[in-house]
């Protein structure tokens, strides 16, 4: 239950770059990745991997673990994509056998699809992970405010971000305390303990609500949750050049194909 993505994003080496630049860069590469050919998509995945592991200094092991999460989803979908069942024979069968009147086969179109999905997933996921690893949520929120996201949404996002960590630490504390009294020993006790934990968490959520109503009122709450963040960033010319040149090359190759 440890949100290590958040921790890493606050500590990465590209932290001082303006979040606007990082988000813009990721969005442009993402759009290219969506329309590019598989080979270019692989190139994008490698290029962004370099940004994440070498420039941002995110441990390779952690980056690969996160990549395996996306690949895992792809893996469990593979059978549905490449296996086929038909009455007799199928036109795009690569390999097949029949049991009775049912014909089981490997679909050629399915295999192609699986490959296309894999390269697209790898490239777009790299763009997403680039943002997650290099831009803390607090800075994404500032950009959302700048681009005129509805105010009620940015307020809710700010509060939710704070509350997630409060409730998560409450849940973690309760979870540990239950373990110290040997909760979660059997499946039945597991269920019972988890239901107690969720219920307590709910009650604490309500308690927090009452307390926050008081504490925000004490600080002059006037109907809005507005804050000011005076953060300044240091743009880097070296990274800007690499990013724009790279995007340009990718775009040219994609369009001239």
């Amino acid at each position, binding site marked *: 239950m440890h949100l290590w993505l958040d921790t890493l994003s606050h500590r990465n080496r590209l932290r001082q770059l303006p979040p606007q630049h990082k988000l813009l860069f990721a969005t442009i590469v993402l759009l290219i990745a969506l329309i590019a050919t598989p080979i270019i998509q692989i190139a994008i995945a490698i290029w962004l991997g370099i940004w994440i592991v070498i420039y941002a200094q995110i441990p390779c092991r952690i980056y690969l673990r996160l990549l395996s999460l996306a690949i895992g989803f792809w893996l469990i979908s593979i059978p549905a994509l490449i296996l086929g069942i038909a009455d007799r024979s199928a036109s795009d069968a690569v390999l097949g056998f029949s049991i009775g009147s049912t014909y089981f086969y490997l679909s050629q179109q399915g295999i192609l699809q699986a490959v296309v999905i894999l390269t697209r997933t790898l490239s777009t996921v790299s763009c997403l992970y680039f943002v997650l690893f290099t831009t803390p949520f607090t800075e994404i929120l500032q950009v959302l405010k700048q681009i005129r996201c509805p105010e009620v949404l940015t307020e809710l996002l*700010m509060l939710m971000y704070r509350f997630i*960590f409060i409730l998560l630490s409450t849940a973690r504390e309760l979870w540990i305390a239950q373990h110290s009294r040997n909760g979660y020993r059997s499946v039945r006790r597991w269920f019972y303990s988890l239901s107690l934990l969720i219920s307590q968490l709910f009650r604490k959520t309500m308690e927090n609500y009452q307390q926050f109503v008081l504490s925000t009122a004490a600080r002059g709450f006037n109907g809005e949750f507005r*804050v*000011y963040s*005076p953060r300044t960033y240091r743009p880097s010319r070296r990274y800007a050049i690499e990013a724009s040149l790279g995007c340009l090359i990718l775009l040219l190759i994609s369009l001239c194909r």
Partner: protein
Amino acid sequence: MSLAFDQVEYTYPGTKNPVIQGLTVEIPIAKRTALIGQNGCGKTTLFLLANGLYKPQRGTIAWKGQTLSYDRRSLIELRQKVGLVFQNPEQQLIASTVAEDISYGLCNLGWTESEIEPAIAKSLAEFGLTELAHHPIHHLSLGQKKRVSLADVMVLKPELLLLDEPTAYLDPLHTRMLAQTLETIHANGTTILMATHDLEWVYRWADWVIVLDRGTLALEGTPQTVFAQKSILDHLKLGVPLTIDLISLLNHLEEQHGNHPIIHQIRERLHPNQP
């Protein structure tokens, strides 16, 4: 006086017994006042009443002679003058970074960015938080969170600062650091009212002591006069700090033996700050 309670009664909705009953007390201006009493004697409720967050069912509360009217405008004004730091910083900090959290109160007052920026920078520096300015709240330690919750309120420059058990869970070092910070705040003319269970701290720190017992005023006065009422304090199950106990012993011994150098030296050790 700064804040005055007159015959105040408050009962939590849905409960029978009033937590505060017929409380009449005044917070002396520009002093370090300590509020002591049993758990459940109404200390926290008193703070919430003082900040206008609860409205008493009976009696009145007045700020600088002016009775609170509980309309929006006067409440906003009151909460600027009377700053409340909650017991648990977890339930006070709401923004995602330290600097943002400190800016919240100022934003509520409608300050512009150019006014807010220097105020935050100053406050961060005052509370030793400059390096943590852009850290998310959940990365801070308890001591740091407590400092942020104090900075949150002090940035609004209140005239009266209410503190609910600020030393709980703090180690001796952080307690000393807090004492220093409070000294600066006091020196700048802010009235402080602090609830605490640490009687030794009360004796050393406070200029004035208010003792609550089941929602009413049991005793008030300087630490010397309050802690001299040993029988009342024992009856309230509060007791007196060790220092007071020793001083009364020393006074007693002095009567017997005269001003012996031993007595003098021990007295000096008990009051390291006084000449």
